[in-house]
């Protein structure tokens, strides 16, 4: 039985683990957007904070994921449920691309447009929601896309600490020394990453300012 037959035979579990995987990625990306986009906006408007914030996000990125999982395990409320922990860790890793792209996107808005808008009497929030965010949307989304693709990969490691997802197939397959099981986890994960990359990319292109 090759890997395709194996996946078809066990399609319920492949689907279930894929959904778990999507849940981990989706929730953490949502959190990262909720935290990262406002932070990116703040540092774009107040450049004196940009070094510490970007440096901070960068440092998080350099911590190897399994090590980060390990650091967080002893933490009381977090460590008691590994899916919480995994979601926190995934959120942290998604922050840098999102903060950085929000910052770049907003800084990249044509300064003539900003000047005209300010001179016309738009309030700060009108500027943000009617001018800056729509014009930066494509760049911000590209940061989200990067974050999602990274998350899909990292979430496979989360299975090592019991958070579920497609990584469980991979680790199981390694323990059983069974290629089909490994691939039953690796292939859907790769497909998910590709689909996210292409899907978000399409939306990104449509939002690009002319």
């Amino acid at each position, binding site marked *: 039985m090759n890997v395709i037959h194996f996946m078809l035979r066990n399609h*319920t*579990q492949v689907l*279930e683990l894929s*959904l*778990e995987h*999507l*849940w981990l*990625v*989706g*929730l953490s*990306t*949502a959190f990262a957007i909720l935290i990262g986009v406002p932070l990116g906006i703040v540092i774009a408007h107040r450049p004196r904070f940009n070094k510490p914030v970007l440096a901070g996000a960068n440092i998080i990125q350099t911590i190897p994921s399994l090590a980060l999982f390990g650091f967080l395990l002893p933490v009381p409320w977090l460590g*008691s*449920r*590994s*899916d919480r922990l995994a979601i926190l860790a995934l959120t942290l890793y998604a922050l840098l691309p999102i903060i950085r792209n929000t910052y770049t996107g907003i800084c990249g808005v044509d300064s003539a447009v900003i000047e005209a808008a300010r001179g016309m009497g738009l309030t700060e929030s009108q500027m943000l929601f009617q001018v800056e965010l*729509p014009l930066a*949307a494509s760049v911000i*989304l590209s940061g989200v896309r990067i974050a999602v693709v990274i998350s899909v990969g990292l979430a496979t490691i989360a299975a*090592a*600490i*019991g*958070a*579920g997802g497609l990584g*469980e197939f991979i*680790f*199981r397959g390694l*323990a*059983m020394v069974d290629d089909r099981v490994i691939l039953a986890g690796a292939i859907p994960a790769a497909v998910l990453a590709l689909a996210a990359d292409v*899907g*978000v990319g399409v*939306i990104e292109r*449509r*939002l690009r300012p002319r």
Partner: protein
Amino acid sequence: MRRKTSALFLVVLLASSLSCAPSHANRIVVGSKNFTESFILGELIAQQIEARTGLKVERRFYLAGTYICQQAILAGRIDVYPEYTGTALTTILKQKASADKTEVYQTVKTGYESRFGLTLGPAFGFNDTFAMEIRGEEARRLNVHTLSEAAKFAPKWHAGFGYEFMERPDGYNGMVATYGLHFQDQPRIMDLGLLARALKDHQIDFAGGNATDGLIPATDLFVLEDDKHYFPPYEAVPVIRQQTAQQHPEVAQALAALENEISDSEMQQMNYAVDGQHRDTEEVVREFLKRKKLVP
């Protein structure tokens, strides 16, 4: 307009991925750890539930260890899995073990119910405690039967243990302290499945295996008696989510029917069938259930 539809589409995408939160309706998911005995028990639980209730059973075996199983059942990704009372007591509840098996069972049951929303089914009947093994010929030659007696010869021996045994509070350190064991050098850490062969090949002289290892009778290994009762009892029990037990009382009943049905030697035989004879787990379990008339 294009912008609005694109934004809407994104929101829908994100929302749908968020709604994938784990949950399963009329299925029971059975988990197991990643060694032979655990997935035999897991398969046993699964087939028992399938045969006795009308429910569909999903198997999620080969979870890499106690912590991962615990996380999976807390998160609701699995509904039931086989655990050992001694393990539950010391590594999950982090309490000191006693030698009394009923006491241990009760402590674990109440602890799980109050802290985790989990409960225990009745024990399967065997005690898979740690078994300190030496070669049969050595035991006969030296006339040694207990761990206390073995302490005399330990300095001449090389020892080998599994990783968890070395790390666990109820494992290596406590044992050498209790019995005053001093081996020739630092013990070798190896995969449980390789211990028996290493012992036979004289690579090690003293191995920390499990009482129901399939290869014990087959390879003439002698299990030293734990005369000081250092090792806590490790009765195999099914751990179930209380929510599952309440929603599906028929599952609890099906598991109750397995109470005391597996003796030490019966478990050993099943382990040997899979490990030694390389038979299919599913088949071995099916045969067992039929023989014991547990399933129609």
